[in-house]
Structures are given as structure tokens and as C-alpha cells.
């Protein structure tokens, strides 16, 4: 059944070509939603089940020394707690965004392409979620990357869009390469070095029959595993835009807002986190890896948040926020609480999609993304304003919105580990501080866009609310942003998380276990909102004076710590200069040598021609000279050579 769904998803793009196509896509997405929801519901009603189905792609028999346990690549599906959770996210957000697109994208050209790519993306994403082995995971992982590439570059006639698409692809490619190496390392460790446990013979599969493989059981070379973990982290960092591979995500906002909502907020970027979770649950990380993951996550949380603080572009603010939030999830997984991270992923997907769609609604209405040109939009766009506010509150971790439950879970979980892992402290603090920044920047955006009396830029088109197809998604997502966090109180959902987490052998942490901590984080969130209100509330615009000490910091933040400049420099100057130099060597040194030979032959031929003087005495002289040469050979050279060669 799951397989048939994937096939339908894949078939989708072709159907779209027939018609203008949006509704067909929506239909398919709806079907996917139904199927996905059924699967998720099945898993939730009966948590902890592992349903595995697979088909062999190709295989090699076992060979001593080479593949002691054989080698096999398979394609298969696995439904387990985490994939069910993730599937729900993908299908729901996918459907909602698809619906929303009908109106939002109405005026654009190339809609067939848009829907086809979006459908393909959905198919690939579901494939990724239900993949039952690392290899297949990688296949879909790449496919979603390509879809992302196309969708970012949807407005391909804009140079910035195509450039951003390229950048996204390249940066994630770096991560992919590391991911690939990680796969190899795991394979080598478990399939070649390790005992015959069937892991590799079945080709990187996560489960053994209906039970997950457990890293602890399999053992192996710890150095190798550590490196493998780092590689996986690298892959995840690329996809989930973690430091230092974060640069592409803000630029990816060149794509349509719907795409940002679906791919660059809810689903694809979460794939990195999902990968970490899967690895953590099924293969396990070493302690070094965990620390590194915590470090990356914690740092990114704060780091991205700082950049969001000053940005004038509404979408980019949300994009930085996404990076920051993904950092939380990574942090949680690093600390050993994969399911907690996934829970945040779950809730975050809804409220972040909501934020994006709300922002999209705004952009659709006013035609700009610059916050400083907007203002006073809450009056014409009540629903949007409300939705954005709900999303903002969820993001800021204000109870009872969804974000509170999951984020608080993460903080509490990491906090619980501080005793045994004091090295987590700085990253915990950074993450904690980021709560404040988060609340501040999202409400700064809200106030700038919605509060006040009217647009600061009078040339803006008069704002209006979108049609029902745009409103329904907002409403649905608002509901989910409020309600999805509350699922935590449903015992079955708890069991689901538990069973997932249990797979990794780590006790679950959920709910506000530490009231003090929760209180502190809520307080920070509120403080952030307060600061935003103070500075930007009611249509005010707070401007730093040029002489202020904070000005250089602002510029640093606006320039994103010069990361992009640096990367561009490496790409354009460094690599390209090397390439030019290599081209020079190729043309003039290597080929030049060849031409040198050519000229030498021509010159030789020309010079030798002159010996044919036509004068017979010269010819006779050649004969006599030749005679002497033969004598020299016969009497002097050859005997010497023969004696050198030992008489034979």
C-alpha cells in the first residue's frame, strides 16, 4: 500500500503535464494526505510497530575477504514511529501548501512545471521518510535536493534566483558527499569488519526483520564510527543548513514563498534532522559525535538567531529562524533525545509553515518582502495577522502554543544531561539565550509588518486578503500550531515517542518536567516580545545611529558574518583561478610539448631533405661515410654492447 502510494506520487508529475494542472496536484497531494494520515494513525493507534517491505535492487554473493557477508542494495519501505511522525508532517504540510499555491501562484508562468516539481518533491520526500535503508535514503535525499534546486530557481530568469539555486545545490552537495562517505564507513564497519549480523548483506537496512538494528549490539571500530558519525553530521548540516553550511538557506528564499514554506521550513530541511535521528536511533553515535552534534546544534541556534535580529526581509527572518530552530532539534538529537528533536520537528513544521504562508500572504498582497516598507497590515489582513501572531507565539515558546511543548522538552532534555556531560553547558546556554532572540526577532517582524497605521512605503499596492484557498491553509495550520503540541498529552503519542526513543535505548523526556526551566524560558520569550514591542511596536521604527557602537555589529550581522562572501571568494577566486591556471598548463605545457615534437619532426624532415642534394658525389660520400659507420658499429660499438650483455 505504501509502495503504491509512492508510485502514484511519482506518476503525479506526468499527469500534471496534461493540464494547467494545479488541481490535479492538489488531488494527488490530498490522496497522499489521506494515505499518510492513515499510516500515521495506524502507527499512533498501535505504537512501536515496524513494518518492513523490500525489493532487491542488485546483489553480490558473499566473497571471502571482499564481502564476507555479501553485498546487496535494496529498495524498501519501513513504517516505524519516526517515519510515521514525519510522514504526517510531510503529507499535511504538502497538501496544505499545494492548496495554498493554487491562488498564490496564480499569476505566474510555468505552473505546470511548478506543480510537477512540487509533486516530485513530495514523492521524493515521502520516499525519503519511508526508506528502509541508508542507500535508498540517500537516493531520495538527493532527489529532494534536486527538486529544491529547481524550485529555488523557479524564477530562473532572475539571476539571483538561479544563483541561489546553484548555491543551495552546491552547499548541500558538500553535505551529500560527506553523507555518502558516512554510508561507506558504516557499511565498511558493519559489513566488512563487523560480525555477520546481516546488516550489510541486506544493504544498509535499518531493521532486522521487524526489529531495529541496534548499534550497541553490533559494535565495531570506534574511530571509524566516530568519523562516520561526523560525516553523517556533515550531511545533515548541509541539508538542514547548520553551521557552517547554513549559507544557502536564506538565499533559497528566492523561490516562491510556498516553496519556502514546504521545503525550506517544514520538510526538506528537516530531512537532515531526520537523518540524524535515524542514525542516532538505528546506528548510534559515539560520545565524541554527540558532543560535536550538540556543539553544532547549540551554536547554530544562537548564531542564526542573531542574524535574524536585524534582517529587513520578512522571508529571510523566518529563514534564519528556521536555521535556528533546526539547531534546537540537532541539539536534542546530539544530547541523545532523538524523539524529542523529532517532536520539535513535528510542531515546528506546522508553525513554521504557517509563518511562511502568512508571510506569503502578505507578500502576495503587497508585492514586497521588505519589512520596512510594510506597516499597518493587520487591518486589511486580519486573518493573516492572527495567523502570523499564532505562528510567532508558537515559535517563541509561549504556552500553550505548540512550540512551547517541544522546545521546552529539548531544553529540559539537554539540561538533564548537563550533569553527566558538562561539556554541553556552553551550548545549552547559547540555545537558552536564543529563546530570547527568537521571540524578539519574530515579533519585530510582526510589529513592523502589521502594527502601525499604514504602509511606510506609500507606493505599495493596497493590501487585501487572499481567496479561500489561501485562507484555509492558514486556518488549518494555525489550528495545528496551537494543537500539535498538545498531542503530547495523548498517551498513545507518548508511547509512540517512547517506542521510537526506546529503540535507541534512551529514556524519554517529555512534558514540563522542570518547572523552573520552563518558567525561565517562557520568561525569556516574553521578555523578547516585550523588547520587540518597545523598539518596534505600534509602527515605530527603531534606528541605530550611524555612530553607535552597535552599528558595526549590525553590519556584521547583515552581512551574515561575511560567510557568503568568503565562500564566494573561495569559489570564484580560489577554485576558478586554479581552474584557469590548470587550463593554461593544459594548453601550453602539455599540449605545448606535443606541438614541440611536431615542430621538431617538421624541422628534422626539412633539414634532412637537404642531404638529397642531387649531386652524386655527395651520395658517394654518404656511402663511404656509411661504410665507416658500419665499421664503427661492427668493430667497436656492437662488440662492446655484446660484451656488456654478457656475450649473448
Amino acid at each position, binding site marked *: 500500500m505504501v509502495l503504491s502510494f509512492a508510485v502514484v506520487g511519482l506518476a503525479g508529475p506526468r499527469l500534471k503535464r496534461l493540464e494547467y494542472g494545479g488541481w490535479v496536484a492538489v488531488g494527488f497531494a490530498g490522496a497522499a494526505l489521506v494515505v499518510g494520515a492513515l499510516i500515521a494513525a495506524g502507527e499512533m493507534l498501535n505504537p512501536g510497530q515496524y513494518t518492513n517491505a523490500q525489493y532487491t535492487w542488485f546483489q553480490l554473493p558473499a566473497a571471502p575477504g571482499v564481502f564476507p557477508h555479501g553485498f546487496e542494495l535494496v529498495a524498501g519501505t519501513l513504517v516505524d514511529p519516526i517515519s510515521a511522525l514525519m510522514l504526517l508532517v510531510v503529507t499535511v504540510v504538502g497538501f496544505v501548501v499545494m492548496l495554498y499555491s493554487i491562488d498564490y501562484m496564480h499569476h505566474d508562468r510555468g505552473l505546470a512545471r511548478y506543480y510537477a516539481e512540487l509533486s516530485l518533491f513530495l514523492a521524493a520526500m515521502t520516499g525519503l521518510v519511508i526508506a528502509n535503508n541508508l542507500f535508498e535514503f540517500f537516493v531520495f535525499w538527493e532527489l529532494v535536493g534536486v527538486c529544491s534546486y529547481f524550485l529555488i530557481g523557479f524564477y530562473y530568469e532572475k539571476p539571483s534566483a538561479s544563483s541561489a539555486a546553484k548555491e543551495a545545490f552546491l552547499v548541500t552537495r558538500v553535505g551529500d558527499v560527506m553523507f555518502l562517505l558516512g554510508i561507506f564507513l558504516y557499511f565498511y564497519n558493519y559489513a566488512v569488519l563487523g560480525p555477520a549480523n546481516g546488516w550489510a548483506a541486506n544493504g544498509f537496512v535499518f531493521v532486522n526483520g521487524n526489529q531495529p538494528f541496534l548499534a550497541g549490539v553490533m559494535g565495531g571500530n570506534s574511530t571509524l564510527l566516530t568519523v562516520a558519525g561526523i560525516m553523517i553530521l556533515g550531511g545533515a548540516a548541509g541539508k538542514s543548513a547548520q553551521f557552517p553550511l547554513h549559507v544557502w538557506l536564506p538565499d533559497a528564499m528566492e523561490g516562491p514563498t510556498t516553496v519556502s514554506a514546504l521545503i525550506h521550513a517544514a520538510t526538506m530541511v528537516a530531512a537532515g534532522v531526520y537523518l540524524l535521528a535515524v542514525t542516532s536511533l538505528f546506528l548510534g553515535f559515539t560520545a565524541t559525535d554527540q558532543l560535536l552534534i550538540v556543539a553544532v546544534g547549540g551554536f547554530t541556534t544562537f548564531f542564526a538567531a542573531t542574524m535574524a535580529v536585524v534582517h529587513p526581509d520578512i522571508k529571510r527572518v523566518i529563514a534564519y529562524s528556521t536555521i535556528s530552530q533546526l539547531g534546537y532539534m540537532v541539539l536534542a538529537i546530539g544530547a541523545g533525545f532523538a524523539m524529542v528533536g523529532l517532536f520539535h520537528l513535528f510542531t515546528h513544521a506546522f508553525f513554521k509553515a504557517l509563518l511562511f504562508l502568512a508571510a506569503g500572504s502578505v507578500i502576495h498582497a503587497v508585492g514586497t518582502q521588505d519589512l520596512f516598507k510594510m506597516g499597518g497590515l493587520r487591518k486589511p489582513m486580519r486573518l493573516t495577522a492572527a495567523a502570523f501572531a499564532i505562528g510567532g507565539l508558537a515559535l517563541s515558546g509561549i504556552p500553550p502554543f505548540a512550540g512551547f511543548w517541544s522546545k521546552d522538552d529539548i531544553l529540559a532534555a539537554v539540561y538533564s544531561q548537563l550533569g553527566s556531560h558538562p561539556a554541553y553547558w556552553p551550548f545549552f546556554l547559547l540555545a537558552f539565550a536564543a529563546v530570547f532572540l527568537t521571540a524578539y526577532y519574530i515579533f519585530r517582524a510582526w510589529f513592523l509588518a502589521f502594527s502601525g497605521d499604514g504602509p511606510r512605503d506609500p507606493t505599495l499596492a493596497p493590501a487585501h486578503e487572499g481567496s479561500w484557498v489561501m485562507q484555509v491553509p492558514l486556518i488549518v495550520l494555525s489550528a495545528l500550531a496551537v494543537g500539535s503540541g498538545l498531542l503530547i498529552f495523548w498517551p498513545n503519542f507518548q508511547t509512540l515517542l517512547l517506542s521510537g526513543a526506546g529503540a535507541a535505548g534512551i529514556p524519554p523526556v517529555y512534558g514540563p518536567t522542570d518547572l523552573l526551566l520552563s518558567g525561565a524560558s517562557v520568561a525569556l520569550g516574553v521578555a523578547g516580545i516585550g523588547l520587540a514591542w518597545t523598539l518596534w511596536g505600534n509602527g515605530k521604527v527603531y534606528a541605530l545611529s550611524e555612530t553607535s557602537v552597535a552599528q558595526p555589529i549590525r553590519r556584521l550581522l547583515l552581512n551574515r558574518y561575511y560567510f557568503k562572501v568568503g565562500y564566494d571568494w573561495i569559489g570564484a577566486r580560489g577554485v576558478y583561478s586554479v581552474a584557469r591556471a590548470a587550463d593554461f598548463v593544459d594548453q601550453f605545457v602539455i599540449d605545448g610539448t606535443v606541438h614541440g615534437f611536431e615542430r621538431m619532426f617538421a624541422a628534422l624532415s626539412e633539414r634532412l631533405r637537404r642531404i638529397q642534394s642531387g649531386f652524386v658525389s655527395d*651520395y658517394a660520400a654518404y656511402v663511404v661515410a656509411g661504410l665507416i659507420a658500419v665499421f664503427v658499429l661492427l668493430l667497436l660499438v656492437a662488440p662492446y654492447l*655484446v660484451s656488456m650483455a654478457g656475450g649473448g
Partner: protein
Amino acid sequence: MDLSSFAGPFLPEILLLAGTLLVFLFDVLGVRTTERVGAVAVGATALALLFVVADLGFAPLTFLRTIPAGQLDAAASGTPLYAFTSLGLVFQAIFLLATLLVSLASLSRPSRDRGAPIFFGLLQLAALGMLLVALASDLIFLLLAIEVTSIATYLLVAYTRHDSRSLEAAMKMYIIGALSTTLSFFGASLLYGAYQTTSLLAIARDGGAAGFPVLVLLGYGFLIVGLAFKATLVPFHAWAVDAYDGAPTDVTAFLAGGSKKVGLFAFFLIFLAPILFVRAAAPGGSPFTSGAVALGPVLQITLSVLAVGTMTLGNVLALLQKEMKRMLAYSSISQAGYMLIGIAVGTAPALAGATLQIFAHVFMKTGAFLLVAGVTAWGVGPLIDDWKGLGTRRPFVGVAFALMLLSLAGVPLTVGFVSKFVLFSAAVQAQGYFVWLAVAGLLNSALSVFYYARVLRVMYFEEPAARATPTGAVAGGSEPPVLPAGGLGYGRATAILLAVVLIVAVGVYPQPVLGAIQAAATHFVNLGA
């Protein structure tokens, strides 16, 4: 001496001699039309060829055998001066084939040429000399037989006696030839001094035991140089280019395809014995004890150097040639280098390879020159560029010439490829440093592709130049050639067709020819050991 037992084995030679005398008689009688005189020559040559092939033991012809099967390759056959070896017969066949091709083509020479009897007479005489070379087992016999050919060819080159180019060519050929002959005889005299005999078989049995290593080496050195003239080895080749260029093209065809091979076979005869003797007597060790040198390897090294030098220089010089005949001449020189590899390696397979190469060269080079002669008769100039567009205008002549060039370049499915393949295989099979000979030969054949390809390009890819060629027969396109058979004449067309058919047939299925040659070479090698 019983005449019948004498006449039998020598039937081919006697046929040619009779032909020669007959056409000289024609001259006296005043019968001088090319066709009639030529018919005699063609007939005599063809008959002789038939007998030679029969003697080689080809199945349907065995009833024509003149040499009893047992006498062939027997060391005791003949006298110390001559012997019937199957390799010799193979070479006789090669020589006769070349002569036959040239005679056939010459039938299409101008009918009223008053010198026709002399031309065909000298041609047959030269062929006779070549046949005798193939029988020789004595140094002096060999050298004198070569001189029969040489003298006849000097005069053939000078045959168009009102053409200063022809006479100049003859003059150069004569001077260098006479010089080389002198050196050969000088070398023979030194060998005679060392061995006190001129019988090659006796020398082979004596081997390095003569006790005068320097004298022997000097003798062989002189002989190498003297024979190198005939075989056009570098640096003794310079005359050849001019002679090939200046001589009447049909004679050039004979020089390149026929008489030059005489020198190569002489190399086989003279140098195989010392090389083989060393191998048989002292495998792996030095045959010259007490601090002297190993004769065989020394000769092999020297011949190798000559071979490599010849093919390389021939090819390099051919690269920039603008005239068709001179380009072919240089190509012919480089081919001699390949053939010399056979004797430098000195094994039966190598000899077989070289023989096949010589065999192949007959069709390729003789055919090419005959074709050039025919095309020149249309008024096409001597330069390669004068051949522009010929391939498309004259498809069959073009295809024939292209096939010959491709075969010369060693393109697969032509006899040129098979022969090079066998030759270089044999060099590799001999192992040791001979592998480098194969490498050098192959690299050279790569080099040679350049100038052959250039001709093909001119023939097929370029449009004829606007300027009218002297008689405007082809390039002008107005005046159709007067001769039948595509403007070549029946005789020439037959000869070229024969060459092309053999190039392809032997190229695709070489087994019969190659098998016979291999067997002959094996016998030949065993004879010396």
C-alpha cells in the same frame, strides 16, 4: 653434365633466357611493336612463374614440378654454387610476380616505341638475374647474379635515352651501384681470405671459427654496404630517390617492387648463416672464445641499427615530399627497413614475416608506381597536389590507389597489415631487444600514415585546382583518355587489378601464402644449422 637433369630444375631460368634472346632477335628482325614483344615477355614470365609455383608444391600444379620434392631444401642438391631452397623458390615467385606485373603494364606503353625489344629484353634479363640470385649458395655467384640485374636495370633506367632526367638517374644509379659493387667484391675478397672459400654453406659451417674476427667483420661490413645499395638502406639510399624519380615510371615500379628485393634476399643468404651459426653452436654463450666477439649478435645489432635508421629516415623524409614518385620512393626506402628487421632478428618466423612483407610490397609498391605511370600518361603532373579530386573523378583508379596506400600504411584487412603484423610478431616472439625493433617498426608505421593519409586527403577531400594541367586530359576534363580499360590500357589495368585483388585477398585470408612462406623459411633456417 647431363643436360636433361640440368634443364629440368632450371626451366624457369631457361624460359626467361629464351625470352630475352627471342626479343633481342625480334630487335634484329625489326619486329618492334610493344604488344608483340611484350606478349613474349609476358608469356615467358607467366610460364616461369607457373613452374616456380609448381615447384613450391601447390596442390593443383604439382604435375608441373621440375624439381623433385626430395631435392628441395636438401643441402646436397645442386653444386656448391647454387641450391634449390623453397625460400629461394618463394623469392623467385616474388620476383616473377613483380616482373609479370611490370611486363603486363608495359604492354600498354606506346605501341610504336622502337626500343620495345630492348626494354622487354632487359626486363627479362634483370628478372633472370633475380631468379639466379634466389638460387645462389655462393658469394661470388650471388654477387654476379646481382650484377646481371644491376647492369640490366642501369640500362633500363636510362632507357628513355632522350630524357635527361632518365639519363641523370641512370648515371647516379650507375656510379653508386658500381661503387657498391666494388665494395661488395672487396668484402667478398676479405671473407675469401678468412674462410678460403666463397660457398655460403661452407662459411656457415665454418662459422666464427676462421680465426680472423676483424677480417671477417670487415668483410661483412663491406658486404652490408655493398648490398645496402641494392636494398636502398639509409644512408646508402640517396641514389634511389633520384633514380626512382628520373627513371621511366614502369622501370621505377620494377626497381622498387623487384630488383630492390634482390638486395634483401642477398642479406638473407649472407647474414643468416653467421647469425644462425652462433645461435646453434653456442646458445646463450659467446662462440668466439678467448676474448673475441660474438659474430652473430654483432651483426644483428648492426643490422638492427640499419633497419631502424632506414625506416625512420625514410619516413621522416617522405613526410614533406611534394612529388608523388619521390614520396613513394621514400616510402619504399622505409619499407626496406621493415624488411631488414627480418634478417636482423634472424629466426624462421622473422624471415617469414620479412618475406611476406617483401611479397606484399610487390603489389603495393609496384602496383602504385604502375598506377602512377598510367595516371601520368593522362597528363597529371608529378606533384601530389596534381592529384586533387582524382579519387572522386576516377572512382576505380582512386579506390585502387587508396587500397595500395592503405596497405602500405598497414591498415588491417590488407596484405600490408598482415605482413607487418607477422613481422613484428616475429620480432616480439624472438624476445629480448628485438621487441624494441618491433616498437620502432610500429612507431614508424604510425609515422608513415601521415603521408599516405595526405595523398588520400588530396584525392578525396580536395577539389582540383583551377589551373589546367599540361595536356588537360583529366584535370581539364575535356579530352577523354585514348587508351581502353578506363584510360589505363588493358595490360596496365590487368596488372593493377591483379595487384589490388592480391592485396585484399591475401590481406583477408593469408593462410595459403603465409603457410607456404613459413614452411620455406623454416626449411631455410634448418638448412644453415
